Each structure stands twice: as structure tokens, then as C-alpha cells.
């Protein structure tokens, strides 16, 4: 009845090391995943799938990648958009150029190439720190934006330099309807989220965090900063690359480099910070916030206006949306610099103590 861990004695370290230590958590998560796979397809409509759920899931995935690098390893990156682009374009090339290429392999290969790019552009991190590094990663952002526009080879020489894919299928399963697309993306996201969680709570995750928190001390206890940073770049950009490929293949179907421009990088960083640095769960909260709130504002404002009998023009809505979003972001940062994930853990903490606080 109560949310308690009392009485759930952990007799082995193994059980103490589970992802969700409290039994109720475990049940809740499993129920949530089951609901996502079974309940949501029954309830949601086309708009929800296409305009909200699919982008939400893919951005969550990308944010997990960013969080590994920024939140866990402490290397601020503003180049995530570029790694999404690398994932998208390379997956596209693999998919189109190789006969009978299975979709999943193509998507993963996008991740692979993004990983290579990530490692290369991660090399400055061995010398450069903090905000200097952040700006240096913009080099990746602008370089790849340029590359995919300029070098026609990447877009199979299409005249306008766009890429498109159609008729996707996995082992005979046609990904036509929005439900199919949603389920496909969901599957990817769940698997990757679990793998990522395992990494960050394991030895490599501790190396990353150690580098983040105090790199000199980390090297004194035998952690090689180069290895830790580059693996973080690799794992992170792999995940981001896969997310990029999903975004292009599943969400858009047809895209251009602008899809992955610097605003995308900022957006991802927002997700991670609003959600909570160093929290996988936070990525989902952050993505939900960033995906839903502009849309919600955009639809809500005219409605609110009408309540008061004023017609708010589209441009006014557009500007107000910017202002409110900006203000909301600041507000969240002020209220909880550790992001929405902190609320999550605080809520659990309180629930655990409830009804006896302190």
C-alpha cells in the first residue's frame, strides 16, 4: 500500500545494484513500458503520434546521448546536432547504396559513423575544457552542416541536396502507419535507454563521472582521462547518431541539413539541463517539456485570448511563445538547477518518508 522500501531487505549486493531498487519502482516502470507498448497505440491519435510522441521519443534518445557526454562526463558539447546529421546522412548512404540493406543495420551504421565523427571531434577535449570546449564543438556543428550541403555525394547527387527514404520495413513489417513508426521508435528507445543506464551505473559510468567531477584526482586513481573522455564521446555520439537516423528516416522521411542545425544542438542541451544533468530518466522529462510546451503554448495562447475576447495574431503567438518558453526555462533553472529529474527523486524521497517528514 505504501511506497516503502522497509521490509524489502537486500540480502545480496546484486539485488542492491538493481536499476530500480525499490520494488514498487520496478513494477511501476514495467507497467509504464507495457502501457507505452500496448495502451498508447490504443488511445493516441495520429496527431499525437506524429507530432508529439515520435519526436518526443527520438529526442529523448538523442538527449540520453547528450547526457552521457555532458551530464555524466562533464564535457559540454554544442555539436550534438551535427552528430545527429552524421547519423542521418550516413545511415541514408548505407541504406541506399547497399542493396537489400536491412533498415536496422542501416540505422545502427549511422550511429557507428556518428561515433567515428564524435571521436574525432572529441579529441580537443583532451586539452580543452569547459566553455572553451563547448565552443570548439561548434566547429563540428558548422562543419557537418556545411559538408552535407556541399558534398553532393552524401545526398546521392540529388539536385536540391535533400535526402529522402520511403517504404521502410523491418523483417517484413511495413512501417507505414504512425502506430508502426511509434512502436518501432519506442522499441529502439527502450533498449537504448536500458543499455545506457547500465553503462552509466557501471564502471565506465563511474569513470565518466569521476572525470567530470575532478579530473586530476581521477587520473591519480588510475583513470585515463583520454580513454574516459573519448569513450564518452563515442558512446554519446553513437546514440545521438542513431537518434539522428531515426529522426530522418522515421520522423521526417525527407530532410536537409538544416534539420540538424545549431538550434537542434541547443534544443538537446536544453532537454538535458531541464531534465537533469546526469539522469537518464531526466532526458524523458526534458524532452517532454521541450517538445510539448511550445506546441501547447502555441495552441493555448489563441484559446486563452479568445476567452478574453481578443484575437491574438499568429505572430503575436509566435513571439509570446518565445517569451514564455524563455521565461519557463529560466524559472525551472531557478527552481531546480538539477532539473526535473530532481523533482522526481524528491517526490520519491518524500513518498518514502510519507506521512512522517524529516
Amino acid at each position, binding site marked *: 500500500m505504501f511506497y516503502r522500501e522497509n521490509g524489502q531487505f537486500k540480502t545480496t549486493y546484486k539485488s542492491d545494484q538493481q536499476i530500480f531498487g525499490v520494488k514498487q519502482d520496478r513494477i511501476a516502470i514495467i507497467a509504464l513500458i507495457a502501457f507505452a507498448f500496448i495502451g498508447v497505440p490504443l488511445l493516441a491519435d495520429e496527431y499525437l503520434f506524429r507530432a508529439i510522441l515520435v519526436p518526443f521519443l527520438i529526442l529523448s534518445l538523442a538527449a540520453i546521448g547528450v547526457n552521457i557526454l555532458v551530464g555524466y562526463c562533464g564535457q559540454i558539447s554544442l555539436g550534438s546536432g551535427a552528430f545527429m546529421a552524421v547519423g542521418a546522412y550516413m545511415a541514408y548512404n548505407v541504406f541506399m547504396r547497399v542493396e537489400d540493406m536491412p533498415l536496422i543495420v542501416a540505422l545502427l551504421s549511422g550511429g557507428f559513423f556518428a561515433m567515428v565523427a564524435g571521436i574525432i571531434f572529441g579529441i580537443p577535449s583532451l586539452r580543452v575544457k569547459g566553455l572553451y570546449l563547448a565552443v570548439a564543438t561548434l566547429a563540428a556543428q558548422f562543419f557537418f552542416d556545411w559538408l552535407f550541403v556541399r558534398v553532393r555525394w552524401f545526398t546521392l547527387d540529388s539536385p536540391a541536396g535533400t535526402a529522402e527514404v520511403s517504404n521502410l520495413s523491418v523483417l517484413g513489417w511495413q512501417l507505414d502507419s504512425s502506430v508502426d513508426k511509434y512502436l518501432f521508435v519506442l522499441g529502439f528507445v527502450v533498449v537504448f535507454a536500458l543499455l545506457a543506464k547500465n553503462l552509466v551505473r557501471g564502471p565506465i559510468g563511474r569513470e565518466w563521472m569521476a572525470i567530470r567531477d575532478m579530473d586530476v584526482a581521477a587520473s591519480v*586513481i*588510475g583513470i585515463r582521462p583520454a580513454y574516459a573522455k573519448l569513450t564518452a564521446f563515442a558512446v554519446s555520439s553513437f546514440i545521438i547518431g542513431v537518434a539522428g537516423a531515426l529522426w530522418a528516416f522515421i520522423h521526417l522521411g525527407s530532410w536537409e541539413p538544416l534539420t540538424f542545425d545549431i538550434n537542434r544542438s541547443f534544443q538537446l542541451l536544453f532537454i538535458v539541463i531541464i531534465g537533469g544533468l546526469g539522469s537518464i530518466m531526466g532526458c524523458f522529462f526534458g524532452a517532454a517539456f521541450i517538445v510539448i510546451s511550445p506546441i501547447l503554448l502555441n495552441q493555448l495562447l489563441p484559446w486563452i485570448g479568445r476567452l478574453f475576447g481578443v484575437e491574438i495574431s499568429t505572430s503575436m503567438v509566435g513571439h509570446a511563445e518565445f517569451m514564455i518558453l524563455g521565461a519557463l526555462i529560466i524559472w525551472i533553472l531557478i527552481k531546480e538547477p538539477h532539473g526535473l529529474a530532481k523533482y522526481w527523486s524528491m517526490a520519491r524521497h518524500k513518498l518514502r518518508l510519507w506521512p512522517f517528514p524529516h
Partner: protein
Amino acid sequence: MSKKKIGEVILDVNNISLRFGGVKALSDISFNVREHEIRAIIGPNGAGKSSMLNCINGVYKPQEGSITFRGQTFKHMNSRQVAELGVARTFQNLALFKGMSVIDNLMTGRNLRIKSNLLLQALRWGPAEREETEHREKVEHIIDFLEIQAHRKTPVGQLPYGLQKRVDLGRALAMEPKVLLLDEPMAGMNVEEKQDMCRFVLDVNDEFGTTIVLIEHDMSVVMDISDRVVVLDYGKKIGDGSPGEVRANPDVISAYLGTSH
């Protein structure tokens, strides 16, 4: 108490000099540390004590001199190598991983011993899981030993200073080092806590035979527990010997101890 057995020289520092621009942090320092002993380094503020430790574990690269560790001689050390050779240390200005829990901090101390690769870790499968559990057991021993069970999962940044110091020690212990370098482990503690800390240090020294190099300003601690003491002043060595000898050394008295002690 049984007289402990002090062994051969394990760490030999030869003619180390270290400069930062115009500042001579260390000039021509030599001393050695024997296996199983507690070796204290004392000296006034800015004497170069911390810098000495930094040279030993590769954070600073001295311009001159060499360091011999268990028979191998190095011009200067490399942090990773030193860690692999079995040297661990704690820091004067707490260098913990603030965002991580106590357990995770200690677990980083075991990272050198992790064998499973990234893929296994991601899947948390078989060997990786088993390995993790083994290391966790070791770490739990240390946690028990340092009596910080209650704080296992607290992010260390939120712990009070004194406990952070303990975690710092724990992280070093988790490496199961041959030699442990402690930089003012008892600063900011009251007597009771210092007593605890001394007990830990002595226990480590006794039970695991760990060699200890200790920097400390509290003379009573130094006098009570160390076997031999080096005294630095303005980067120079001005004394070396048993606590008693050092306490009687007039240079040391004027430079460091003052008259009231």
C-alpha cells in the same frame, strides 16, 4: 602491541627539484620510505609538502631528480602508472567526485581492476555483473571499516567536511595500495575524530601492511604514530629522523615547531 616489522626501502626519492616559474617549491630533496612504516612529512605552510606528494604520483613533473619505486627508477612519474604500481593518495583540498555517491566514489578506486569491456557493461551480463558484485563487496568492507554505512548513497558533496575526508581515505583504500600518501587527512577534525582517523591509519598499516606517507600539522599525531619524520622548509629538507630526533632538532624547532611545543 607487537613490534611491527619494518622492511626494505620501497620508495626512494632522489634529489628532487621542482620550480614554478620563479618559485622554487622543492630544492634537491631526497628521502626514502621503508616498507610498512609510517613516514611523516612536516613543515611550515608552503614548504613544499603537497608538492612532494604531487611529484610522487605524477601530478607534477619535477625538473630534476628521480624517484625509485620498488626497484624501478623514474625520471618522473605518470599518474596511471603510479596507480598501477600500487600508490594511492588523499588530497589536502578534498578532491572527491562531488556529484557521486559514497559508494560510487569508493568504487572508482577499483576501476583499475575492472576487466569486463564496454559491451558487457552495457548488457550487464554474466561476468560484468559478477565482477561488479565482487568489487562491491570489497568496497562495503571499507565502508564498514570507516563507519560510513549510513551515508552510502549520499552524494559526497553534501557530506560535512570531516566525513568527506573519510571518504577520500576510503577511495584510496579501495585501490588496495602498497603505499598510501595522505595529505593532511586530519585537518578540520576534532580530537575525537582525529582519534578515529588515527585508528584507521594504524589499522590499515597493521592489518594490510600498507606503507604510509603522512603529511600532518598536528604534532601530537605525528609524534604519536609516525616511525620516521622528514621536515621540509621553503623547499629544503631540514630534518629527517625518528620523531624524537626531529623534535630535538634546533632547525626544526625554529622553523616549525616554535617554542611552545
